[in-house]
């Protein structure tokens, strides 16, 4: 299979001072010059270089959908800027076979004084279309945008919705061989992002080469054939999306999957109960802390009851990334109805598979007793554990084959019943 994109030891260097002096005015540049004259050594020391990309090499075969992930500032956007030729590399080279499109450029160069018709031609040329191609697709673009009636009206009189539809329509008819999508940069409403994702999915399934930069890991897992992780300007991982994502999450994951207290004195709790350890039971075949959304997740609480006093029982509280409480749960089994005998217990709470949504999840644990009508906490550990729920994108989870944004604290896999349609019966 021929190669669509071939990057060879691509590097891009930025000078830090450059960014600050970016927007000069007369006064600034004069004071700048003055300070330069006054303290030359200042300037020599202040020139810092940043390698946004360093020796990045990879190949993308034609028709592959490649996802690029990485932290903010890892170099993802710089890579895309180099590939779209908005900026030039400092060294290295890239060979690109085929026309490149990026949804970054939607509406680029639209001129408010020109009519819709004129802007289609202008924008089309800017995106690299030949006049003939625009002629051929003109009717389709107009129809798709739904602004037929206003096609000869200056776009400054358009509503913003019409404007965006017309702009998107031109970009959507570009039909590039290679599509570069930066979800991070494509600001815009959710509607727009959804369209971008949809467009990308279609191009991907039509056999076009797609390079997709995103923070939406589930979308990457779902849509991509392969994933790259960039960190500090270099490619640190290259492989199957699920694997790359799992490793990436593991690196970025800060809070622990396990907390153990070495002694009773150090352990949290009162004179009745102490929490000795909390851990998230690992999923087989996944790195610690990365949980398959479809499988039950076990949170084990090891606690000691120091004396026979009250009936105590373990409780967990599960929170999502925004610290929204997903749910509280406690063990209501009969075994905790009598005053609990002293000793060490290991209780595991099983969160069902297909319940929590993807993303970072944290858990709080507590050992409680019921002091009607209140719940008395004998031992409590806030942010005891955290883990990342990942959808490997195999199509059998609650999101099915959908790769876009999936909102909600929980995302249960529901059972659906459908009455037979009376007409077809």
């Amino acid at each position, binding site marked *: 299979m021929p190669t669509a994109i071939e990057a060879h030891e691509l590097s891009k260097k*930025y000078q830090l001072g*450059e*960014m600050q*002096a*970016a*927007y*000069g*005015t*007369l006064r600034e*540049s004069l004071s700048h010059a003055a300070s330069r004259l006054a303290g030359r050594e200042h300037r020599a020391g202040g020139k810092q270089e940043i390698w946004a990309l360093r020796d990045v090499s990879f190949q993308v075969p034609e028709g592959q959908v490649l996802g690029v992930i990485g932290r903010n500032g890892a170099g993802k956007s710089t890579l895309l800027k*180099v*590939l*779209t*030729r*908005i*900026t*030039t*590399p*400092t*060294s*290295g*080279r*890239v*060979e*690109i*076979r*085929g*026309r490149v499109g990026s949804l970054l*450029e939607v509406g*680029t*160069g639209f*001129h408010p*004084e*020109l009519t819709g018709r*004129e802007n289609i*031609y202008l924008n089309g*040329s*800017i*995106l*690299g279309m*030949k*006049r*003939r*191609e625009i002629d*051929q697709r003109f009717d*389709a673009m107009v129809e*798709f945008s*739904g602004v037929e009636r206003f096609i000869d009206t200056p776009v400054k009189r358009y509503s913003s919705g019409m404007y965006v*539809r017309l702009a998107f329509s031109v970009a*959507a*008819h570009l*039909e590039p061989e290679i599509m570069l999508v930066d979800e991070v940069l494509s600001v815009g409403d959710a509607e727009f992002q959804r*369209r971008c994702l*949809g*467009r990308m999915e*279609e*191009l991907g399934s*039509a*056999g*076009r080469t797609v390079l997709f930069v995103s923070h939406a890991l589930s979308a990457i897992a779902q849509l991509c054939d392969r994933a790259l992780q960039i960190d500090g300007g270099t490619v640190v991982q290259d492989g199957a999306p699920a694997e790359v994502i799992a490793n990436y999450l593991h690196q970025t994951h800060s809070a622990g999957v396990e907390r153990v207290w070495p002694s009773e004195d150090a352990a949290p709790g009162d004179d009745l109960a102490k929490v000795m350890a909390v851990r998230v039971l690992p999923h087989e075949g996944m790195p610690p802390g990365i949980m398959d959304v479809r499988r039950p997740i076990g949170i084990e609480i090891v606690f000691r009851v120091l004396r026979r006093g009250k009936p105590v029982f373990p409780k967990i509280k599960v929170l999502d990334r925004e610290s929204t409480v997903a749910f509280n749960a406690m063990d209501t089994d009969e075994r905790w109805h009598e005053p609990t005998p002293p000793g060490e217990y290991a209780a595991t709470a099983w969160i069902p598979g297909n319940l929590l949504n993807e993303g970072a999840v944290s858990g709080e644990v507590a050992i409680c007793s019921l002091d009607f009508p209140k719940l008395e906490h004998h031992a409590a550990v806030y942010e005891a554990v955290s883990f990342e729920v990942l959808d490997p994108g195999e199509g059998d989870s609650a999101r099915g084959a959908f790769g876009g944004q999936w909102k909600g604290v929980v995302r249960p896999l529901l059972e659906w019943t459908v009455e037979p349609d009376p007409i077809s019966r």
Partner: protein
Amino acid sequence: MSQSKLEIPAPAPHSSRPATDSDDRVDRLVVIRPARRWPHLDVSELWHFRELLARLVWRDVSVRYKQTFLGVAWAILVPVFTAAVYVVIFGKFAQFPAGEKNTAYPSLVLAGVLPMQYFASALTGSSMSLASNLQLVTKVYFPRTLLPLGSVIVPLVDFIVGLPVLIALMWHYDTWPNGAQVLLAPVFILLAMVTVLGLGFLFSAVNVRYRDVRYMIPVFLQVLPLLSGVMYAVEAIPTKWQWVLAFNPMTAVIAGWRWAVLDAATPNLGQTAVGVGVGLMLFVVGLAVFRSSEPRFADTI
């Protein structure tokens, strides 16, 4: 707006893509490599993007007089008004010399004002071209040289619209060109274009970082007509000063253009050569500065 309108057309499979000409980018292998800093023009790439150039020029031309009451009439009014003021002040009051051949002063002045007006518009437009197309520069690729280049083509339209006024004056004062030398007239306009493109490259690149250019250019343009012989014939001033003014390419442009279209005094060949030399040098220097700062445009603009 019905929801169904928001669906995206299914991309056509590869095979059904309409056939395109051989130089279409679809089949092009693009190699991205570090920017070359030496002052090259990359004509083959400019040629490849000729449609975009035409489209950008067309945009600027069609937007130029939008939402003005007098519209394209401004292209005539501005030089006519300027020339009229010069004729009254310098011709009537100050009795400026009309040159060796004593060409009718109004013809002489308008023949100077038109190229100067072109130069002024082209310089302003091209110097601002990168900054005013910020959105394009930061979002899509095309040769950046296209922007200053387009901006020196746009005011040619005004120049051509103003020509009938000059022709009318030539008819009125009977200052017709002397045969074949009129064919050289475009060459002098070309010299103006090359010079202003060089300055456009230079200033547009500088303007990316320092927006001082915006304030500098009007001052420059106020002085320039005085140093280019717009309101006098350059051969009428002391020879020593003629050679000083020769370093301004616009002096050569205006003297040559007057000679070609009005049959005014033949320009001094040596002085013209100096003007051409300076014009070419400005072009190369401007392009060199443009190329050396080009890699940073998108990052610093």
